[in-house]
């Protein structure tokens, strides 16, 4: 009986966490689309956040993208040639590496670097009563702190995914020359023929969703910190676990949606 009760309690807790997160997401979304949110103070925070998340990371990100992209494309191209699937090289690049691997890899890097930092920052601000300071001066923490960080997440994941895709496609060009002896013209024609606007649109939507939740969840868990410093690591730990669950969940949802749309079309 105890076992069943434990499962029930855990299910209720999970359901409550999910409903709270979606309610919070709705509140934030309303503020994101409200033009009045973007006053001078919020614009400064937004610019700074984009710099910290998408610009500071660039040298490391481009290096990793080039190495990882070369490895993925090189190995895949070699296997495709051996299996006689060279004709699907373009689809593999555009349909798998660009639309699936790029956003996933990008959001993992952003979650490791920025989501954990944002979770800690909000938890520390809660513990040190800095959120109380904002309220004392009638500054809405959701508008001033959360919206710029979440918009930054959406912008950064989308832009960095595109950069990742470009790095991978450049590696693809190199391997297409070495393995398939393709010229640049042939390679470009292959990519254009394999590109589907629907896939690119789905990739953009997925990037926006991944960026939104990979920052929203750490903020929500940062706010769950109490007045004790020891609550900071606990909130970061819980927040990061839920971020990774959300990333996998969005990936699975996007795969289901893409395959359903594919069947319909």
């Amino acid at each position, binding site marked *: 009986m105890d076992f069943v009760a434990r499962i029930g309690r855990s299910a209720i807790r999970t359901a409550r966490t999910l409903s709270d997160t979606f309610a919070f997401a709705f509140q934030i979304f309303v503020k994101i689309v409200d033009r009045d949110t973007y006053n001078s*103070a919020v614009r400064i925070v937004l610019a700074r956040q984009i710099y910290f998340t998408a610009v500071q990371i660039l040298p490391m990100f481009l290096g990793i993208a080039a190495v990882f992209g070369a490895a993925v494309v090189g190995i895949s191209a070699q296997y495709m040639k051996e299996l006689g699937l060279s004709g699907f090289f373009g689809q593999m690049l555009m349909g798998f590496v660009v639309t699936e691997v790029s956003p996933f890899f990008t959001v993992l890097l952003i979650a490791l670097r920025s989501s954990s930092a944002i979770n800690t920052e909000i938890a520390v*601000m809660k513990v*040190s*009563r800095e959120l*109380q*300071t904002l309220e004392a*001066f009638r*500054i809405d923490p959701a508008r001033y702190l959360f919206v710029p960080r979440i918009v930054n997440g959406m912008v950064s994941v989308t832009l960095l995914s595109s950069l990742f895709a470009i790095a991978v496609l450049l590696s693809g060009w190199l391997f297409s020359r070495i393995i398939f002896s393709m010229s640049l013209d042939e390679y470009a024609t292959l990519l254009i023929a394999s590109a589907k606007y629907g896939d690119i649109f789905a990739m953009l939507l997925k990037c926006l969703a991944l960026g939104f939740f990979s920052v929203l969840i750490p903020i929500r868990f940062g706010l769950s910190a109490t007045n004790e410093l020891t609550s900071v690591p606990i909130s970061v730990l819980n927040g990061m676990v839920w971020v990774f669950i959300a990333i996998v969940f969005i990936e699975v949802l996007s795969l289901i949606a893409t395959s359903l749309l594919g069947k319909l079309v």
Partner: protein
Amino acid sequence: MGIVSPDIPLISNLDVLGNIALIREYHGNLPREAVEDQIRDLLRRFDLSAIAYRRIAVLSEKDRFVVMLLRAAMVMEAMILIDRPFRMLHDPRDYGFILTSLKKIDEWYKECHIFDYSWNEERYGGTDAPQDGT
């Protein structure tokens, strides 16, 4: 109302300028450049121009008090409320410093009230009068 209180700390991920400018930027939608000159002028009155880009953690307790006071003065037509100042300034002679600081920015606020425990009365000179900083 502009509050100066140990319970309303400065924002640690902003520098001095950012902390003071925040209220005008947020409520007045003023760009940083428009507020910066005014803040620099105010910091100059306290001989604190050098701390404009410093983080809060490196400030002395007096500097921190001045930054909180300037932040409170940024509220439009400010009524400044100083809450238990001796929890922020620990030298018993600091009441003079509070009064001098208020005088340096007197055109920036409409009125100012200091709230403190009755057992601190002596620090204000032991009379009722100093309890109102105006």
